């Protein structure tokens, strides 16, 4: 067996994108950003690397373990951003300090998770997302959820829907149990791990009333049209009841937005309690075992940056959106036109190439001096719709079906028959 050289491999969790996939990723990212722009969200760009302290300030000290870290020349600890919300919060509380609120910001970029290992988990992946900062209203929650539905549709992933929950419901239920502090922490941790068997055991051990234990462990079934009514039966704290009222109002607003059909209440959604403070939601598609969108309200994050802004937002995982969409818009790896030229016709050929490029077609010009037939066969076999041999004031056009015809160069330059009508890559 040949020795496996390290340079031929990628570090675990890293990926290359070839032309087709890269084009699709860029198209998806572009469509989602355009969608956000139409809702008034302007794109900002932050650096890949931040101070470790900045990131930990936003994400909590435990998050420090899963960061990709590096040491700067002066010995300062740096880290690659694991998501974009914290860098955006830093940007908002520095560059944009004092700006009128609310702020609507969007971003697209690569994020990094140092500790993800095994089972094909990526340690670098692309995210597109948005943040709505400085609004704590249900109107703001509704806008961000409606935009999430829109962004999912723009991503091209098939049959998407959004599940909407609220961390306050779970928190209220847990508090209602009146567990001693240690038990409460353990119960929270188990809930976060989605270990309902363990949760039930802790509640029983702590002497929580059986009915309440029952209610909490029934959570994974609380979804769909009946969820709120069902939950109201279980909710016995003021906090939980307030949350349910809010969710009901929110669903009402979303129906007015016209996206009610794409949003389902799902109180079993469990995302990081310490980070989220209100609604939480996930976007998913039947084709994928992971959510491709996640978000919610995070009113406490900004406290770490000295500005008590309420905020809500979400991010789309572009790689998962790609995996869940049918392909198609990649444009392939072949050019739209392959141009070759006869001796002495370089000037005409380059003029044609320039003209076609101005029409937004991708054009390659033969640079190896191969015979026309070889160039044309190669290009058509790779998927190019046509090849052109420029002989001077005239040219030979070979179509995908192999037929050749002669055309005046002047016609081709004007985008005449056979050109300009081709598929224009979006």
């Amino acid at each position: 067996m040949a020795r496996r050289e390290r340079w031929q491999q990628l570090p675990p969790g890293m990926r290359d994108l070839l032309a087709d996939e890269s084009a699709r990723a860029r198209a998806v990212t572009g469509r989602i950003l355009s969608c956000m722009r139409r809702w008034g969200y302007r794109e900002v760009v932050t650096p890949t690397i931040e101070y470790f302290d900045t990131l930990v300030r936003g994400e909590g000290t435990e998050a420090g373990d899963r960061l990709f870290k590096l040491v700067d020349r002066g010995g300062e600890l740096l880290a690659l951003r694991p998501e974009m919300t914290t860098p955006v919060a830093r940007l908002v509380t520095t560059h944009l300090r004092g700006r009128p609120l609310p702020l609507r910001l969007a971003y697209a970029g690569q994020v990094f998770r140092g500790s993800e290992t095994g089972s094909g988990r990526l340690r670098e992946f692309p995210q597109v997302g948005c943040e709505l900062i400085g609004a704590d209203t249900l109107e703001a929650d509704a806008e961000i959820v409606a935009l999430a539905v829109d962004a999912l549709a723009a991503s091209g992933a098939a049959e998407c829907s959004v599940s909407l929950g609220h961390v306050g419901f779970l928190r209220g239920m847990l508090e209602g149990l009146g567990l001693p502090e240690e038990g409460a922490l353990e119960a929270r941790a188990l809930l976060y791990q989605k270990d309902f068997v363990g949760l039930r055991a802790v509640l029983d051990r702590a002497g929580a009333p059986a009915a309440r234990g029952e209610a909490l462990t029934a959570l994974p079934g609380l979804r769909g049209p009946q969820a709120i009514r069902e939950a109201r039966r279980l909710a016995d704290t003021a906090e939980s009841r307030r949350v349910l009222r809010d969710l009901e109002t929110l669903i009402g607003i979303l129906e007015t937005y016209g996206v009610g059909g794409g949003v389902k209440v799902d109180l079993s959604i469990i995302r990081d309690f310490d980070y989220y403070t209100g609604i939480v939601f996930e976007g998913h598609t039947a084709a994928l075992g992971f959510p491709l969108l996640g978000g919610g309200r995070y009113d406490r994050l900004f406290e770490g940056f000295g500005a008590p802004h309420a905020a809500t937002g979400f991010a789309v995982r572009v790689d998962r959106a790609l995996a869940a969409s049918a392909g198609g818009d990649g444009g392939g790896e072949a050019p739209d036109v392959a141009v070759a030229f006869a001796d002495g016709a370089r000037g005409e050929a380059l003029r044609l190439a320039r003209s076609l490029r101005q029409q937004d077609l991708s054009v390659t010009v033969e640079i190896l001096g191969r015979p026309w037939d070889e160039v044309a066969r190669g290009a058509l076999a790779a998927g190019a719709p046509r090849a052109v041999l420029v002989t001077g004031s005239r040219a030979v056009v070979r179509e995908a079906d192999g037929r050749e015809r002669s055309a005046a160069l002047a016609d081709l330059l004007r985008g005449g028959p056979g050109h300009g009508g081709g598929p224009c890559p979006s």
Partner: protein
Amino acid sequence: MPLVTVAVASGRLLDDSMRTLEAAGYLTAAAWRSTRRLILPCREPDVRVLIAKPGDLLTYVEHGAADLGIAGKDVLLEQGRDVYELVDLGFGACRGVVAFPEARAAEWESLSPIRIATKYPRVTERHFWGQGRPVEIIELRGTVELAPQVGLADGILDLVMTGRTLAANHLVEVAEVFRSTARLVVNRMSLRTRAEAVQAVVERMRAAAAARDPSSV
């Protein structure tokens, strides 16, 4: 394509898993006893059962290649996957323990660092870190009991059911780390995108497990 896929681990949990699926009305005895197939059709056309290696089972469920799975708590603890753990099915009971050679059991408290051979490196790390004890972990695939006898490790962290294997290898239990039974786990998206069909399987499995072993669930 069937709507709901249930993954079952080959190995020590296989028979009880199949019996529970049988009791829940999904499989006939003939369907699983007399076949080498890895994907078994069920009595209901919208459910199928697949058989995976115990170590791979949670990968199928986490990625959504299977909607539900039957996994030992030991594997759940070791792999820490992002799945919903919904039902204690009660069977496959065993314990994770630290065991030492009889002759050296007295040293267990004082050894530092302690060298532990195990199939559960993450559980071992968490356990000893939690106690603030430095540990050197030697990861093995099986027959962990061998390691202390040939000087590869001081002790082991492994599953015990009856304790006979420990005794046969002159090992004694010095600490219990966890208790394990089979658990019904569910992919986090399946709970949403195929809620009704998946929830139906969960409830029927819960009822079947309770009927077989009323102390579980």
